[in-house]
C-alpha cells in the first residue's frame, strides 16, 4: 500500500502533466469549480425566469428545467459528447464536453434553488422597493437577489459538493479526472484493486466532507450533501 502511494501519488494528483494534459485530483477540482462558477449565473437567469410574471418566459423555462432534471447526467454528457462537435464545428475536448454538460445540468438544479431563494424573501421587500420607484430589475439587483443569494449559501455549497462528485462521470468519456486515473492505476498494478479504490473513495470523502464541514461550521447544521 505504501509503495502504491509512493509510486503513484503524483499521477493521482495531477495526471500526466506536464507530459500530457492536466488530470487527477487537480483536474477534478478545476472542473468542479469551473462548472459551478458558470452554472451559477445560468441558474440565476433560469431562476428569475421561473419566477417571472410572464407566462411566455416562465413556461418554456419550467419545461426545460423539468426535462433536464428528469434525465440522467450521463445522458446529458452523451448528448454533449456526440453533438457538440456537430454544433460548434470543431472537435471538442473531453474537458469542454464535460464542462458543458455539467453547466447545463447544474444550471437547471440551481434554477430551482434560486427560485426557492427568491420566493423565500418576504413580499414586503419587493413591494417596498417598487413603492420607492425602483424598477423590477433594480429591485432584483439591489434588494431581492443579494438577500436570496446569502440565504442560499448552504444550498450552494451542497451543490458544489454534488458537482465535485459528478465530475467522476468524466471517466466514461475518457476525461482523466481522478476516478479515471484510479482506473488507470488499477490497470497497471492489477493486484491491488481494493487499495486503489479505497484510496479513491477516501480522497472523495476527505474532499467533500471537508468542504461541507468548513462552511457548516459557521451555520451549525450537520451536513449538506443531498444528491
Amino acid at each position, binding site marked *: 500500500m505504501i509503495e502504491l502511494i509512493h509510486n503513484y501519488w503524483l499521477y493521482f494528483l495531477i495526471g500526466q502533466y506536464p507530459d500530457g494534459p492536466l488530470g487527477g485530483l487537480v483536474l477534478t477540482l478545476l472542473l468542479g469549480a469551473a462548472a459551478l462558477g458558470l452554472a451559477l449565473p445560468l441558474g440565476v437567469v433560469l431562476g428569475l425566469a421561473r419566477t417571472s410574471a410572464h407566462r411566455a418566459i416562465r413556461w418554456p423555462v419550467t419545461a426545460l428545467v423539468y426535462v433536464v432534471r428528469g434525465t440522467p447526467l450521463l445522458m446529458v454528457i452523451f448528448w454533449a459528447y456526440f453533438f457538440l462537435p456537430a454544433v460548434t464545428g470543431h472537435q471538442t475536448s473531453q474537458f469542454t464536453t464535460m464542462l458543458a454538460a455539467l453547466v447545463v445540468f447544474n444550471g437547471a438544479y440551481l434554477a430551482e434553488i434560486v427560485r426557492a431563494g427568491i420566493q423565500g424573501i418576504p413580499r*414586503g421587500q419587493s*413591494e417596498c422597493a417598487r413603492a*420607492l420607484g425602483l424598477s423590477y430589475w433594480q429591485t432584483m439587483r439591489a434588494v431581492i437577489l443579494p438577500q436570496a443569494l446569502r440565504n442560499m449559501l448552504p444550498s450552494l455549497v451542497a451543490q458544489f459538493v454534488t458537482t465535485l462528485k459528478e465530475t467522476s462521470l468524466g471517466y466514461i468519456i475518457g476525461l482523466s479526472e481522478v476516478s479515471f486515473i484510479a482506473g488507470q492505476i488499477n490497470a497497471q498494478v492489477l493486484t491491488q484493486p481494493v487499495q486503489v479504490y479505497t484510496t479513491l473513495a477516501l480522497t472523495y470523502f476527505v474532499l467533500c466532507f471537508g468542504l461541507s464541514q468548513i462552511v457548516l461550521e459557521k451555520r451549525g447544521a450537520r451536513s449538506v450533501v443531498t444528491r
Partner: protein
Amino acid sequence: MIDFRNVSKFYGSFRALNDVTETIARGEVVVVCGPSGSGKSTLIRTINRLEPIDSGQILLNGEDIHRPGLDVDRFRSGIGFVFQQFNLFPHLSVLDNCTLAPMKVRRLSETEARERALALLDRVGLADKAHAFPAQLSGGQQQRVAIARALAMEPPLMLFDEPTSALDPEMVSEVLLVIRDLAHHGQTLVCVTHEMGFAREVADRIFFMDEGKILERATPEDFFERPQHPRTKQFLSDLRSPFARSV
C-alpha cells in the same frame, strides 16, 4: 390632488372597495380609520398602484393613474409609502437604505444622496444610527428610518399604512411625533391608523370606512363631537370602552 371616482375592488367575490368617490386636496392631512376588513388599507394601496382596481378611476393631479403608457416606477417614486412592517432592507445599512432609491431612481450622486439622507435622519432623530443595520434598531427606530427613506425621494404625497400597529406601545409616540411634524410642515398626507388621539390632533379631515365605503368624512371636531352615521357612533363608543387605549 387625489380623486377617487366610483372606485371598486374585489378579492374574488369579496368586495373590498365599494364605489368609493372622494377628493383629497393638496396640503391636506387625512386620517382613515375603521374596523378591520373595512378596506382602509386597500384604499391607500390603490393610490400608488400597489393594488389594482376593478372599476372606476383614480386621478392624481387630474391625471388617470392607470392610463396606458404611464411609467409606473416614475409614478411611484413621486409617492412616499410607509408600511406597517417597516420593510427596511436588512442587508443595507440605515444610510444605504435611504440613499438607494435617490441614487437609482433620481440619479443623484452618492454625495448628494448621502447629504440628503443624513439631513432626513437627523430630522427623525436618528443621525447617529446612520451606519447601523436594521437588525440593530428597535421597531420605533426602524419605522422612523422607513419614514426618512420615503422622504428622501421628496414626494409631494406621503401615505402611511398603519405605521404604528406593529410597534410596542412605548414606541408609538416617537413615530407619531415624526408624522405630526411632517403634517405641520404642509406635507400632503394620508394615514391609516387606529391612533384616534393622533387623528384628533393632526388631521384636517377624518374618514371612517366600513365594508368598503367611506361612511363619514368630517373635521376632527365634527367627527368626535357630532358623528352622523350610526356605525361611526358605534365605532366611537367601542373606542371609549374602559380598555381602549386611544381617545
